[in-house]
């Protein structure tokens, strides 16, 4: 089914951000000097063709989830998805609105959930490190 992440890929993960609402303001400081994600070899790229990880954040409406699905399809094979914040998990504070997608997992296979609304940069870094350890440890759940 999905080609598994192999060990050498872990040293350089390129992420493609598909973030609707608040998540982006949290991902931005990751490049800053305080939470430097580049020391793990993680780089934000601008085209899904180059990316390994799709960072989905913020509430997904019915239209935007379709686009997110197309982007996920267009990423080359060994890929993973990180859901950022509580909105992808359960629609977050828009849980009761008619057009938000309650659970992103139904549409896109999500590998890693980072909790928090919005999650602090430390939480994002910690999430990515746990993903890295999971891959190193061979547990590709």
């Amino acid at each position, binding site marked *: 089914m999905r080609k598994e992440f192999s060990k050498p890929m872990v040293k350089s993960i390129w992420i493609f951000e598909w973030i609707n609402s608040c998540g982006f303001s949290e991902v931005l400081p990751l490049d800053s000097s305080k939470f430097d994600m580049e020391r793990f070899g993680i780089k934000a790229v601008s085209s899904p063709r180059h990316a390994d990880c799709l960072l989905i954040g913020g509430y997904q409406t019915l239209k935007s989830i379709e686009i997110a699905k197309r982007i996920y399809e267009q990423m*080359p094979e060994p890929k993973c998805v990180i859901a950022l914040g509580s909105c992808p998990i359960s629609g977050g504070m828009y849980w009761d609105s008619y057009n938000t997608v309650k659970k992103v997992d139904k549409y896109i296979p999500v590998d890693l959930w980072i909790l928090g609304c919005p999650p602090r940069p430390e939480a994002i870094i910690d999430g990515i490190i746990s993903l890295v350890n999971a891959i190193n440890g061979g547990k590709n759940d």
Partner: protein
Amino acid sequence: MWWITLIEIAVFPIVAILLGLLLLGIDRKVAARMQRRVGPPILQPFYDVRKLFIKDTVIPKKSTWIFDFMPLLSVVSLFIIILYLPFMGLSPVLHGDMVFILYLLILPSLAKVLGGISSGSPYAAVGSQREITNMMGYEFPLVTIIFFMSWKLFSFGVAKPFSVASFTSGVMWAGLGTLGIAGALLLLFVMLLVIAGELSRPPFDVSSAGEEIAGGITAEYSGRNLGLFYIADALKLIVLTTLVVVLFFPFGISGFLGIGGWFALIADSIFYFIKVLLLMIFSETVLKTSVSRLKVTQLVNAYWGSLLMLSLLGIFIIFIDMVLS
């Protein structure tokens, strides 16, 4: 002795790739350090290339067969330039002309552009026509400097003023008064900016602008093709800094230290590496961390306007100095 050149033809490119990726790693590390960030490990480019070669290579339906062939051509043309330049401080493997090298420098970015154009995506089309505009821009100051120097060689009465070998005889600083030194430094400054432009580094990176046109030329490239373009970028860094070394600092260290044989070789190559490192840091790492991107319209004005005037000013100063002395 022709089989030695064959071996050199086979070995040098591999050494160049390793050196180039190492330099890119140092470049990213120094840039991070300048922003008080920890920055990626020095060997990060090696991990990136290895990862890219593992990933799938997606070929879009709309793209033609050229899309798959062009990364190959751009790397091959860069390999060829390395053979014609005094790489690692040694004398060049094959003897060539400066005009030939100038034209061959167009081939890698042309291959990238042809690949981008035939990938069918509008992002890549916009990116590639910006790359061509960038290429048209930076050629003017580059060609003026190189032709001025060969004209200077010609006025010194050198037999073959255009061949690379006669350039490595240190033509730039020969017979210059203090005024001439200032002019030569001005030319060096212009050359460093042109090098940054040719590598499409931040002030001039309109063609692979991440934010505006998603990924620029390489929007559709993935996996192994992207890996080849990554290597091509590293090689281009080596080639251009070697070009500046040939033009401005061609003298070796071994003659100075007076050691012969194998040690001279090693000393020369280490000195060459240091020269290339310093040039890279001053030319594009400093620029990468300090200047933001130019608009496409400002690009050609920057090259044909200010940079060209600066180089003409430098040439004029050197000319006055030659007349005075």
